């Protein structure tokens, strides 16, 4: 704690010292306009729990590895828990992280992260804006239970060519936009890819070469491994007229990890050396591919229509092959292999209409039809080749679910009175899978009371259903995870949430929000089977156990924006509970039951050339299950004959509190060609707090000296926790060029 205080003090002193410098007062109009627009938009919304972020805000925030990240930005919002450090978890109002609706230009996306969750799949250079709903969901959204992240990508510039090139510590990205037909058709394309292979491939090649020098070309071990991820966005927009436009959106994102090891061994037989090779080959590949066609048409001044047809595919592939060589007068091999593949496809069409018959009514209505396919499969092969009795043992397990999901919705934003606005809506959803129909009606309502020019009171009620279930045996975002539909056995997940809040712009530079929520969740599913990495394909309906959840809390935010300095302070006080009868007879804390969460963020535009960022993040420790009682058996002679531990309730152990400080600076300059270039230095976890990712309880030992004078150790009779922190201080730098 002492160290923490010292470091926070140092960080503050750095900021205060820097604040004393003369500020160059230029180029603040654009930022001020963005701020004012955002404040106006946020206040205009009837819904509670809505956070609107435009791309410029996302891109100016802290960027570990020089890659601004949407999900990590959202993790800082009040009411959101981030789960495991550095991962792309988004646990909104007690949700389980797989219940967020991610929409990319209106198309649902299942896989939203790269590198086991380290990076989100959204290229921030392509993002125009996003709406993040934690409560008060409008009727136009459905299909997920806890939140909506509606990401809109930018249209390309219709007049000029522009772009961005950025190089970070791990990845590089390029984005180019411009007219295809000036004034009529534009494109915006973004590509992001890791470049770590530039280092790893030569390093491995060097190691292989050294092995050849030592062992010779025939006997040297040969290793090959590389990891990379890439994603690609393309948006082509054609304006038939100002009221009529068509967009083509493509997105593809993939992670790949091929590994192979070839090891030689030799056998002397009859005085002759026989050399053979054992090989291990592995492949991990996972990602999304998405394509959509969007047509926006202002039919009249009062009627607007948007139609989107799309196909989205999420695929995970894991493959492994092992071949073991032996010599028995001839080459004989023993081969085993396994492939696990999971494909989830969604093909659909949505039509959304916006109709304003009179000023007091803003009506939205629409329909959606989706065809979904869930196809996980596992294939394995075991064979011996060349043995006296060759054996081949292979098999395949696969499951195929085909489902139709359709919905209708209508919502009306009504100006009831000058000081009262309401958004009333209803959504009807039908899910059909293998002959089983689930029909759900979801009422949605939001009320906003104007309290003068600067303050509002808002209340909302919403019900949401989710027909897709993430089938995972661990809490990690692994490519082994897959999606499955609600079936006759597995019910759709359901949430009901009430929320209310007070929102005020106390001064032009100060926005204050205070929100509270209460949310219940039904038909949650959690893995209840034995330890496994691969989710059980054909028995998941029975191995996942059903339960309930509830969450409630208060969240407050202070957003201050001055000419040069922007600060945000968010605080959340929340409770998150679970009740799974198969686990425990009563309610118990959720593993992300973080009682307190504080995020303090500051951006300081010292000059047009120099920006500083500081962010301090704190939350009460995550929870995990640990033994808290022990039962010892004693026989008649007083000997202890048995000992076993009792885990009295799930998530009984609170890990140490989480906190870290991030700092960043941008140094900008204008190139000779007039382009803006930025050098970024970011330091993640500045004071190197090894926040616990997991922990275990163990006996505490103390050192002592034996009567013979030897140092030794003995148990103290107490138990201690050993916390394993994985993420130390991470300094990174990067370069961005805008042209």
């Amino acid at each position: 704690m002492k160290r923490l205080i010292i470091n926070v003090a140092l960080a503050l002193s750095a900021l205060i010292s820097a604040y004393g410098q003369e500020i160059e007062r230029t180029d603040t109009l654009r930022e001020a306009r963005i701020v004012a627009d955002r404040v106006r938009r946020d206040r205009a919304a009837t819904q509670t729990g809505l956070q609107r972020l435009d791309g410029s805000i996302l891109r100016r925030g802290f960027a570990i590895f020089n890659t601004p990240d949407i999900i990590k930005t959202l993790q800082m919002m009040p009411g959101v828990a981030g789960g495991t450090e550095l991962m792309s978890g988004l646990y909104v109002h007690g949700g389980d992280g797989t219940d967020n609706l991610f929409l990319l230009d209106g198309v649902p996306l299942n896989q939203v992260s790269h590198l086991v969750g380290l990076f989100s799949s959204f290229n921030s250079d392509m993002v125009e804006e996003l709406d993040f709903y934690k409560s008060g969901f409008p009727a136009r959204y459905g299909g997920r239970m806890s939140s909506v992240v509606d990401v809109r990508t930018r249209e390309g510039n219709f007049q000029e060519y522009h772009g961005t090139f950025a190089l970070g510590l791990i990845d590089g990205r390029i984005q180019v936009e411009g007219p295809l037909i000036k004034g009529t058709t534009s494109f915006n394309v973004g590509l992001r890819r890791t470049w770590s292979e530039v280092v790893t491939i030569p390093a491995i090649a060097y190691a292989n070469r050294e092995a050849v020098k030592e062992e010779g070309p025939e006997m040297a071990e040969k290793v090959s491994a590389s990891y990379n991820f890439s994603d690609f966005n393309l948006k082509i927009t054609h304006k038939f007229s100002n009221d009529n436009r068509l967009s083509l959106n493509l997105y593809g994102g993939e992670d790949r990890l091929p590994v192979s090891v070839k090891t030689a061994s030799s056998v002397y037989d009859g005085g002759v050396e026989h050399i053979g090779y054992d090989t291990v080959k592995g492949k991990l590949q996972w990602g999304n591919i998405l394509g959509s066609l969007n047509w926006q048409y202002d039919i009249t001044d009062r009627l607007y229509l948007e139609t989107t047809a799309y196909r989205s595919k999420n695929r995970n592939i894991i493959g492994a092959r092992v071949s073991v060589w032996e010599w028995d007068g001839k080459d004989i091999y023993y081969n085993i292999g396994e492939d696990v593949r999971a494909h989830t496809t969604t093909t659909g069409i949505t039509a959304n209409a916006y109709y304003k018959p009179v000023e007091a009514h803003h009506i939205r209505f629409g329909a959606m039809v989706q065809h979904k396919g869930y196809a996980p499969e596992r294939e394995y092969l075991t064979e011996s080749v060349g043995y006296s009795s060759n054996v081949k043992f292979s098999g395949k397990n696969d499951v195929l679910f085909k489902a139709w999901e359709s919905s209708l919705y209508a919502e009306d934003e009504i100006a009831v009175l000058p000081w009262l606005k309401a958004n009333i809506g209803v959504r009807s959803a039908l899910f059909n899978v293998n002959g089983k129909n689930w029909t759900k009606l979801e009422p949605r309502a939001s009320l906003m009371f104007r309290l003068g020019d600067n303050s509002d009171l808002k209340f909302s009620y919403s019900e949401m259903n989710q027909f897709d279930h993430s089938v995972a045996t661990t809490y990690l975002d692994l490519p082994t995870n897959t999606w499955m539909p609600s079936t006759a056995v597995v019910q759709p997940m359901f949430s009901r949430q009430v929320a209310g809040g007070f929102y005020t712009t106390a001064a032009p530079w100060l926005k204050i929000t205070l929100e509270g929520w209460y949310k219940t969740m039904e038909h949650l599913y959690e893995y209840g089977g034995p330890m496994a990495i691969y989710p059980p394909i054909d028995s998941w309906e029975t191995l996942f156990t059903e339960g309930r959840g509830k969450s409630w809390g208060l969240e407050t935010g202070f957003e201050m924006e001055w000419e040069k300095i922007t600060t945000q302070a968010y605080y959340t006080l929340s409770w998150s509970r679970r009740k799974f009868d198969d686990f425990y007879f009563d309610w118990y804390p959720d593993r992300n039951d973080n009682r307190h969460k504080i995020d303090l963020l500051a951006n300081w535009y010292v000059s047009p050339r120099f920006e500083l960022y500081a962010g301090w993040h704190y939350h009460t420790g995550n929870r995990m299950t640990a033994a808290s009682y022990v039962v010892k058996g004693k026989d008649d002679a007083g000997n202890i004959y048995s000992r076993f531990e009792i885990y009295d309730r799930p998530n009984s152990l609170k890990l140490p509190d989480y906190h870290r400080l991030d700092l960043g600076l941008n140094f900008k300059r204008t190139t000779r060609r007039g382009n803006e270039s930025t050098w970024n230095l970011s330091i993640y976890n500045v004071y190197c707090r090894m926040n616990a990712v997991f922990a275990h309880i163990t006996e505490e030992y103390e050192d002592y000296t034996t009567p013979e004078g030897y140092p030794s150790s003995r148990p103290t009779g107490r138990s201690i926790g050993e916390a394993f922190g994985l993420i130390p201080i991470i300094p990174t730098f990067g370069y961005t060029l805008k042209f």
Partner: protein
Amino acid sequence: MKLRLPFIFLILGCCLCSCEYNFYPEGLDKGSKLYVQCIAGNSDTTYINIQKAMGINSGGEIMPDVESISLKINGKESSIKKYVLPDPPEYTYPDYPYFETKDSPVEPIYIDDLPYYILKRYNMWYTDAPIKEGDNVSLEVRAKGMEEVSASAKVPQEVVVKEIKASPRCTTITDFDFTYRETYMSFDISLEGASPDDYYGITVMQEQDNILSYDDGRVETYNNKGYGRIINWSESDSEIMSELQATGGAWIDSYYNGYFIDSYGANSMKLVSGNILKDGHLQFDCSIFWSEDHESTYAIFDEDTNMWVDGGSLTVTRDARYKLLIYKVSPEFFRFNKAQYLLETNYLAELGLSPSTYSYTNIKGGFGVLGTLTCTATPWYPAPAEPEQ
């Protein structure tokens, strides 16, 4: 320039920070609670095991000072007696004579007059009050200085077996570095009124008489007994976990808790959830003893030459049989044992990276379980000869 100095201090401060630490978890120095296990079934004896669960950082006496035990069956109090360990039995287990000594950690239980061994039952009470299907059982235990505990449960209905089909099978297993043949009996038990909401248990008891008939007229007989190993594996779903396997390791033996469940000695019970039954059929595979009849030779030791020499021929006759114990168990019993099994096997959960680490209990104010079950035993069936590949 003035900006640089604080940053230098800041970076220096970071470098001086430590990156490792232990912590004292909150709430581990809890008081003690009673740990009670009682499995009430349709047998003539019901045992109650009472122990003390201490906070993991607490010390003190490890056995509870039990003041009163109340076991009510349909609201009627039953008489409770302290279980006294029996004297060591006569020499009955030639392979493991240690089991017959007073120092042995195990004691015998008798099934059809044959001894099976379980861990000795210390701190055990019992009642002879008969319990049958549909009975309501409630339990209250008080111990000095500890919170009173209570629980109640209903005894499930007995299973009604419509038909049992058993067919010997054989397949070849290829493991990582060797290939072997596995023979097993494939069972298909048809149950009347089976429900996906119920829970079932299976134990396969087996016995084998080995009769060696020598050509000189001598006859030697050895007896093997044990439990069939339920493997539930077939060509179609090899290596895929099923519910049966998921709970298959939850052997209800005395290893964990010094307790055995009933006088049927079902310490190799495997539990299943009713939702894996297919149209009321419980299907599983089990390795069993096989019957066999073959000619062989034997050797005798010639003391003159100090060598083994041919002794003659003999006939080996192996008469094997098996018997099924089919249980319907209460949900509490199932959950308790499944949780216990998962606790022992899920290392990822131990690290907080996966769900499912918990100790289930339905004992209010304490830990353990008041579980109920009914058992239906089949007759002994003769085992066939081992199938050929």
